[in-house]
């Protein structure tokens, strides 16, 4: 079976990156700002300097962790038809962007601070759109107590989708326990949640080579509950990683290996997704440069490293918003992203984001979903067999004739050749004003018509009570 994928690093280059990562872990180590996690690593064979909070991880420990990290597992959904099996096949799963702090108001167009209601409504729209395979908690609920916003966002999102939910905000081990409690409530208990993880989480190291206390202690809690972890390295070449493509890949690879070691130390066999959102910095402003071609090269290289380890990965994006209203984005971004989606990633993130991922726009999610629906066909499986090559048909048609009436054409045309939905293509090809109006109209219509698989009222109240109790403990 043929599938189009970008290739970048050869075997020798991958080996060098792996060896340099091992050297980093053994000689330089990673900073883990948590005594309990350092103790855990020490028990597993790491050399720990508690004053500097540095753990040096021996190659043997890294290899053992790669061994126990599962190569195949599923991110499960309330509705099993939305379960996501890894490795993904034939194309990656696409999800929404996350943790945006602003939203383009669907009705007024105002670009403003996001609320819990926006998070809920955006989740409903993502639930309605078929090309969105699962959801990140996309918007920050700025109208709830700041230290409880993660559980609020998870709860609002879970209530508005029957697809898998990946949480992107957690601030402490206790926060993690509350999120697990909420997910377990929906799954039907902690064992049921472990068997069918309805949620997973993004857990970011701080590049270079550091793990912040709240996030890493939360990661350990999640791993112990069987919640899949995405160790999202956000290495920025030139600022938080070496400026070179190879240096940035190696830094992100090292952080992922360290994170896998921590997950496996907490709970051997707990699922882990190798993850990166790495890019060079903009050399003039110091901001992250999402438009750099090197970002795509970094993604392709990291996808190859993850594949080498056999660990499912999330290393690339799909999302075309660059303003605060729906748009198809500049051609350069489109070209770069399309190459990126053909990396060996199992997951693509970024749908619906605008303003360098600081904002979310409902209409943009419609645009991104439509583009993804078209683009992913480029990555479908193609059968290369004698039957499909069709020499019999060639002989039958003969020289200088046509295949229009050939049985071979009729047999395979629907299966082989993508026919894009003309109404979607027309919308995406329209002028900017039409794209905005039409994408927003479709979003509004979907929100009006779509029915989410509803929670029982009791369940909602129990979840609300879990969050209220947590807020009470924090306030005390």
């Amino acid at each position: 079976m043929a599938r189009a994928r970008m290739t970048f690093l050869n075997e020798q280059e991958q080996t060098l990156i792996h060896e340099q990562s091992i050297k980093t872990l053994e000689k330089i180590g990673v900073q883990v700002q948590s005594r309990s996690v350092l103790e855990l690593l020490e028990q597993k064979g790491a050399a720990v300097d508690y004053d500097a909070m540095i753990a040096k991880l021996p190659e043997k420990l890294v290899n053992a962790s790669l061994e126990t990290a599962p190569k195949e597992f599923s991110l499960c959904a309330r509705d099993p038809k939305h379960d996501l099996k890894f490795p993904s096949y034939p194309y990656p799963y696409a999800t929404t962007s996350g943790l945006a702090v602003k939203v383009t108001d669907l009705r007024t167009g105002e670009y403003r601070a996001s609320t819990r209601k926006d998070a809920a409504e955006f989740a409903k729209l993502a639930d309605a759109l078929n090309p969105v395979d699962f959801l990140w908690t996309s918007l920050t609920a700025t109208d709830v107590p700041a230290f409880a916003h993660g559980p609020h966002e998870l709860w609002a999102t879970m209530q508005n989708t029957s697809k898998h939910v990946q949480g992107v905000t957690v601030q402490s081990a206790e926060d993690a326990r509350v999120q697990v409690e909420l997910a377990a409530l929906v799954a039907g208990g902690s064992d049921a949640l472990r068997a069918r993880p309805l949620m997973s989480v993004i857990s970011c190291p701080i590049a270079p080579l550091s793990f912040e206390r709240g996030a890493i202690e939360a990661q350990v809690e999640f791993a112990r509950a069987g919640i899949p972890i995405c160790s999202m390295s956000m290495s920025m070449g030139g600022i938080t990683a070496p400026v070179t493509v190879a240096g940035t890949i190696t830094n992100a690879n090292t952080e992922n290996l360290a994170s896998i070691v921590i997950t496996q130390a907490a709970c051997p066999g707990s699922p882990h997704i190798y993850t990166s959102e790495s890019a060079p910095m903009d050399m003039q402003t110091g901001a992250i440069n999402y438009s750099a071609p090197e970002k795509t090269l970094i993604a392709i290289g990291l996808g190859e490293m993850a594949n080498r380890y056999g660990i499912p990965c999330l290393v690339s994006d799909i999302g075309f918003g660059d303003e605060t209203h729906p748009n198809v984005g500049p051609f350069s971004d489109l070209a770069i992203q399309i190459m990126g989606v053909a990396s060996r990633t199992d997951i693509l993130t970024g749908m619906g984001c605008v303003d360098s991922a600081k904002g979310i726009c409902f209409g943009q999610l419609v645009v991104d979903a439509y583009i993804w629906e078209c683009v992913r066909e480029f990555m479908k499986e193609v059968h290369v067999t004698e039957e499909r090559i069709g020499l019999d048909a060639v002989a039958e048609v003969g020289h200088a004739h046509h295949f229009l009436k050939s049985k071979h054409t009729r047999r395979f045309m629907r299966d082989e050749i993508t026919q894009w939905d003309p109404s979607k293509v027309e919308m995406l090809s329209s002028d900017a004003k039409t794209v905005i109006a039409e994408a927003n109209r479709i979003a509004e219509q979907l929100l009006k018509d779509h029915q989410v698989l509803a929670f029982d009222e009791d369940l909602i109240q129990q979840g609300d009570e879990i969050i209220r109790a947590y807020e009470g403990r924090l306030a005390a």
Partner: protein
Amino acid sequence: MAANDIYEEIMQCIADGDEDWARELAQKGLDEGVSPLDLIENGFTPALRAVGERWDTGSIFLPEMILSADAMKAAVRVLQPALQEAGGGAHDMKTCVVGTVKGDIHDIGKSIVGALVEASGLAVIDLGTNVETELFVNAVRERGSCVIGLSALLTTTMVEMKIVLDELAKAGLRNQVRVAVGGAPVTQAFADEIGADGYAEDGMSAMHLIQELAAGLDPAPGESMSKVA
């Protein structure tokens, strides 16, 4: 060596962002009897300005700009004792205090702004990250009139910016300072809401904003080059 020769070398060493060379040249200038103020006014400051102009036009990159600013800082440290001895009060320099607010450990954005502001000719005091509110207040008490640049990268820590402003007001210091705010979740609307004097989206605009805010400050009595951190 004639003063002009050393100024040419300073121009080159700041362009190269070479800290060691900058220290050497500062010492060499003093040894040859050039006044510390002349070295700054005719040597290091124009050299850094030239680097800033090249950055504005996109011909050099941010890391080069920061290295140049660091080289300037290294030179000023060498010149500091001589400046104090010479009664550096004649060379007034506006001050900018930068820091990431309490509860927030993000360092890079604030440090870039600090380096750029310093390169633009202000004295910079970097209080670091996770800065207790009282440290900002104390800095204003010690330095007098200044610009404060507050950074926050989390929605959970943005609120600390308002607390800093409130505490400055309670201490009766609000009219002595101009407060600029920035960081990924911060917006102009938020800056307006908490009563900050300005908001900037990136390092470059933060530098220009702080320059503008500093220009509007009354010179603090006794503010001098000797107060460079």
